[in-house]
């Protein structure tokens, strides 16, 4: 369904942040083989080298346990991006079908689904992931579940509003006039056409998910050693950052750049995908 998107037609606004994310994934996969400090990824400590400032042997310096911050920061991208993708995929998988069904069927089905959704949305943004992860116990998987559960309502809403608009499109009416069933119409017509705004939302949310996960890890609800995750790195270094600025700056910078990148990709996708619409 994306064959209509021409890679070379992608806006530069997608290209650069996309390249950053791609490079980050590649680097995080390769770093265990390339870094002389790859042991640190598994939790090795070298107290004799603790709190070294950035240098040619340690690009981002070392932390209080003597671990190479460059290696850890790059590797942490894998965890953090995994969380980001995990959250949006899960939220999309829960939210989109519900939204499409609500929008297509209307009436009491719509009513019930939207009541539930509004119930979820009644919580202040960070409270639900907090409650869910503290109930399920601190771990990365639970963070993903916690954030996804509190975010899927947004996907329900987008999918629903798409379905409501799309179900009256002529091609849907035509399909119905040929005897197309609801399932056929949802799968062939409504879903493919409602995906662009959902994907735009997902790419923006992927960034925020990383941010929220970092926040939860920061307060001890997420990753735990020896896992490497940006939020956790910042927590562990937070007593030190006044004297050893590099300990929190680099993970922080990577969170920042990743979130911004996903946001730019989202914006770029929005423009690119809109090219296919009649309102050029």
């Amino acid at each position, binding site marked *: 369904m994306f064959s209509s998107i021409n890679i070379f037609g992608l806006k530069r606004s997608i290209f650069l942040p996309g390249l950053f994310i791609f490079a980050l994934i590649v680097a995080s996969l390769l770093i265990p083989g390339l870094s002389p400090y790859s042991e640190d990824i*598994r*939790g*090795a*400590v070298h*107290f*004799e080298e*603790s*709190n070294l400032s950035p240098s040619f042997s340690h690009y981002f310096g070392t932390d*209080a*346990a*003597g671990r190479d911050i460059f290696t850890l920061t790059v590797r942490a991208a894998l965890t953090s991006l995994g969380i980001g993708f995990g959250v949006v995929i899960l939220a999309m998988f829960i939210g989109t079908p519900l939204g499409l069904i609500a929008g297509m069927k209307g009436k009491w089905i719509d009513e019930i689904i939207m009541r539930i959704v509004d119930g979820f949305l009644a919580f202040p943004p960070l409270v639900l992931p907090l409650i869910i992860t503290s109930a399920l116990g601190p771990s990365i998987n639970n963070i993903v579940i916690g954030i996804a559960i509190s975010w899927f309502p947004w996907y329900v809403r*987008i999918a629903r*509003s*798409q379905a409501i*608009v*799309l179900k009256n499109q002529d091609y849907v009416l035509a399909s119905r006039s040929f005897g197309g069933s609801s399932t056929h119409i949802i799968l062939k017509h409504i879903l493919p*056409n409602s995906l*662009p*705004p959902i994907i*735009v939302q997902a790419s*923006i949310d992927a*960034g*925020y998910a990383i*941010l929220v996960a*970092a*926040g939860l890890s*920061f307060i*001890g609800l997420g990753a*735990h*050693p*020896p896992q490497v995750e940006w939020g956790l790195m*910042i927590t*562990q270094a*937070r*007593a*030190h*950052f*006044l*004297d050893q600025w590099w300990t*929190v700056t680099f993970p*922080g910078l990577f*969170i*920042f750049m990743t*979130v*911004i990148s996903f*946001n*730019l990709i989202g*914006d770029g996708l*929005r423009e690119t995908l*809109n090219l296919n*619409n009649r*309102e050029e």
Partner: protein
Amino acid sequence: MLKIYSISCQRIAFIKCLFRTLFTAMFVILISCSKDHRNEREPNTFVFVTYDDVKDWDPGTAFSLEVLPLSNMYELLLWYDATGDDPVFIPGLATSYKQSPDGLQWTFQLRKKVKFHDGEDFNAEAVKFVVERNKSLGRGASYIWNVVRDVRIDNSHQVTFILNEPAPLDRIVSSQYGAWMYSPKITDIPEDSLRNGYDGGTGPYRLKKWIRNGEIRLEKFDEYWRGWTLQNAFSNVNIRVVSEASTRIQMIKNNQADYVTQIPIQLLSSLQDVKDVKVEILPGWVNHFYLLNTKKYPTNDINVRRAIAAAFDRESILRYVYKDVATRPVGFIPATVPLASSPDSLIEFDLNYAKHLLNKADLPDESPEIIFSYVATSEEYHLTSLMLLDNLRKIGINMRIQPGLWSAIWEKAKYIDTAPNIISMAWWPAYASPSDWLYGLYYTQNPPLFNLAHYSNPVMDSLIAEAWKNEAFHPKNAQNIYKEIQNILIEDCVAIPVADLQIWAVYNSKIHGIRGNPAYNTLLFYNLARSG
């Protein structure tokens, strides 16, 4: 298809994102630097910043961080001064005391014209009341009174303690927990009020206000019997709870605090050069160690416990984490505590040996998981956990780290189901004797209070009791028994000693009167003053 987003929406969304991200990035910095602008520094207010709050305001049962405010609100019959080479007892609420030749009767002359903060007179009846109430409550450090059979009121200001067996009662009445003298009027106070902050002492400061997890405000007690003669003494003391170490550092650097505790030792060197900040190492009787749960799988297996001890790289931790604030432990009791002795040897760091021990354990699990709990406010524990995690990984044990607030991890550690396998522990004694460590930590307790290793050994129990009996008149015997006990602890591998700590006092250099007395893990505000 509907165009959901307009251009302006996109911009707003982007700017929002930018701000949210920036905000979150700043969040860390903000919470670390958060300044309380309401707090205008008054010259006669002393600001003490600590990392956790008081849990128990009852002077008869409090047995933890309460020592800081309570030792300023309450007084003892005698003070134990361990600053010099020969410890001496200093008169407190008792002016003098003498013991019978058999050591079974101790008579104390009580200070006259002393009033409790609630207006009651301090007298013989109050002393009898305190001892009997603490004994009957049976919580906290009440065990210190176990040897006392009766308190006899000789006259309004003289009491005689009648003991079951000879014991060094002067050390007991100068205990830093469980020996505070408080007003008998406490029985009129409803439970609720006790829980929300109570003060019935005779000390120089009285409780003015308590904001839970925020601040304890003390004000000077005008009718304090010693009087207020010190120039520039503090009429108010604010004890503030700040859990972030970096915030505490900021506060001392910015002159928002006069004294801060629990500064990560690795960061002390950077504070030494800061103007107006003084870092002083004072003698202390505090040690850090890790208790190994003897009842919970897989540390219920002695070989697993020994393997963990052998995987514990104490030397690195001492050298790089505790630096010169701590000394190498000789046993389970700080070396400078009177009558302290040491076991024959400690289990030393040896990964091969650890691996060998683990194989001997023959566990059903290929790679067993153990849980390590520590007080999150301590950077030293945190770094130690990373060291142990790494070493245990090398011998094939998965360690799961659970940092938490002391109150939370303590509560969990009391019950086998929720207890971790390893828990961080810092100990300072109620009274200065090895038996305090041993009785508090390794004597059979059901349910456990501080015996978080869930260790129970009848031989150990009787040895601890016997050593204690010998302390008063056969100190050499006592010392030998303490050695024997510690050999058993090594043998059973109940705990891993890490460091004998000194007190690292970080305070404003204008403050005078800070003196280290290892017998009391507190700061006596009455002696302090601010210069210029």
